[in-house]
């Protein structure tokens, strides 16, 4: 076992545990998690694997392939979070607006 493997493998296992705790109830999340962390563990244990796959796909190094993949996932995750954030803003605005109008109409009702 190389040094980096000794560091990374427990981290992957730890991440898998935390992930499973967060998504305990969702089967799909579990399957995804198993696939993701399984792949992670595999890449740590068999380092040449990523390089072999990369070569097949026309990428120079395994690391590069992994990097491209992570960048794409990162961008996607960001977009998802951003649009969620915008949606939350809209809901807050609608809520505050409703309270403002309701209070005003309550205050101003004909007596």
């Amino acid at each position, binding site marked *: 076992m190389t040094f980096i493997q000794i560091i990374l493998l427990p981290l992957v296992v730890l991440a898998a545990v935390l992930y499973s705790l967060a998504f305990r109830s969702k089967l799909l999340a579990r399957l995804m998690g198993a696939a993701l962390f399984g792949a992670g563990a595999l890449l740590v244990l068999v380092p040449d694997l990523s390089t072999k796959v990369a070569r097949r796909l026309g990428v120079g190094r395994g690391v590069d392939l992994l990097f491209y993949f992570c960048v794409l996932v990162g961008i996607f995750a960001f*977009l998802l979070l*951003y*649009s969620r954030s*915008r949606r939350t*803003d*809209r809901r*807050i*605005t609608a809520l*505050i*607006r409703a*309270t*403002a*109008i309701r*209070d*005003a*109409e309550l*205050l*101003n009702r*004909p007596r």
Partner: protein
Amino acid sequence: MEPFDRPLGAAIHPYMEIDGVFVIVPAYNEDAVLAVTVDELLAQNVQVVVVDDGSASPARNLLAGRPVHYLRHLINLGQGAALQTGTDYALRSGAEVVVHFDADGQHDPAAIPTLVSPICAGEIDVALASRFLDPKHARDVPPLKRWVLKAGVVVSWMFTGVWLTDTHNGFRALSRKAAQSMRMEEDGFAHATEILALMRSARLRYREFPAHVRYTEYSRSKGQSVLNSFNIVIDLIIRKFFP
């Protein structure tokens, strides 16, 4: 504050024969100048709707005894949101014309009839005030601000296809139909551009009118900084891609 004690549309100006001109004044942390602005508006015999956008000290404390409609956002949402809240309220209260008006005293209330009359006459749906139609008014605008606003006209055109002489003037009047068809989503200052885009897509008839802007020390300090204009543009670009 008892808004319904006031007779609607005491007819001093001809346009008030159609009653229900509601002037929306969004206010965020304004000081006593708000009361002055409101008083000037009340003298125009319109319904005044003050929307307190989460001011630290509730604006109603400054407006004691004045017959205005008062709405308060519990948290600060932004000028666009405040205008939309006021507009919604005005429409629910039966407004025929909705006017947007700044709280800081920059806008001249005496120009309200100029904007509102053509709408009441059915000639247009949206009346926009412009600082740059009359060279006399343009000269009052501080030079740097003038260039930023002129740039704003170009940017606005790029995003909306509408070419005006003044795209960031908060003084405008909308017919009921126009107000109903334009729902502003932008909470912050980008709403000015959003309104133009909505105006265009709803095919509303619009016209610009010359309006005098009164710059005081107070309103200068309150006005948008030049730097903030960059923020607005970046905002517009991002929201174009991620609505």
